[in-house]
């Protein structure tokens, strides 16, 4: 199980929650501008959301590693 106390290592991590509505809205709007039917829109939105989260995770890791090396 993920130890929640680990979050204390990252002060201000709750700010990431502000990204969630943006990820949902950006994914849905982006998906909707690429398709006309709901199954395709939802599938594309899901893919976009996963891509954004993956990108954010990668940037997080890079910054984390950069901080550790100092």
């Amino acid at each position: 199980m993920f130890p929640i106390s680990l979050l204390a290592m990252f002060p201000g991590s709750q700010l990431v929650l502000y990204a969630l509505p943006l990820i949902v809205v950006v994914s849905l709007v982006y998906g909707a501008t690429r398709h006309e039917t709901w199954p395709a829109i939802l599938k594309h939105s899901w893919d976009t959301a996963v891509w954004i989260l993956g990108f954010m995770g990668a940037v997080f890791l890079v910054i984390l590693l950069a901080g550790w090396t100092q």
Partner: protein
Amino acid sequence: MSNDTGSQPTASDQDPYAPIPVDLKNPTTAAILAWLVPGAGHLYQGRRGKGILFLVCILSIYFLGLSMGGGRVVYAKWDNTEKRLPLFCQLGVGLPAMPALIQSALIRQKMDPIEINGVRFMAPPADVSEMADLHRTYGYLFEMGTLYTMIAGLLNVLAIYDAGAGPVWMIPDSEKKKRSRKAEDSSSDDEEEEAPSDETKRNQSAESPA
């Protein structure tokens, strides 16, 4: 006017990603309506589902962002003290951002900006100290609200394009990978069928008379 699918193949009942013809009615009117109110262009075209999606998604983050900064994150100011560049993005939502221009015009004409419940709604800060007060009051929410409203405006640019020219048909990456994998599998199956294995060849040569 309808959005035909160009050189792409026409819709098939099987493929949910295949382009389908969309009736755009008058694309210019639709694009203007889409700019004025997010989703209005699609509702005009009868694309109700997408219209409601754009309306709810874009306006919700716009007003959420606006409320984060106490109705002060969207404002027009272009002088030596500040050049408010985020407004260019925020103007993408159309009418909901217009009060910022009206308030700015009122101030330029040396008139008092309109106040709602004592808040100079969407009015530019009078001076640097008022700007500092806003940041002190709202903290990081002021920047977050600015970001939300900017993204709302930029997303509406995509919606305006969709209303004026129809969807940019494309297949999601995961689906592309799935299809290429399926194509590889089927081509390897075909090769196996066409070219018999070495063992089969050996058996065939043993069976055949010398």
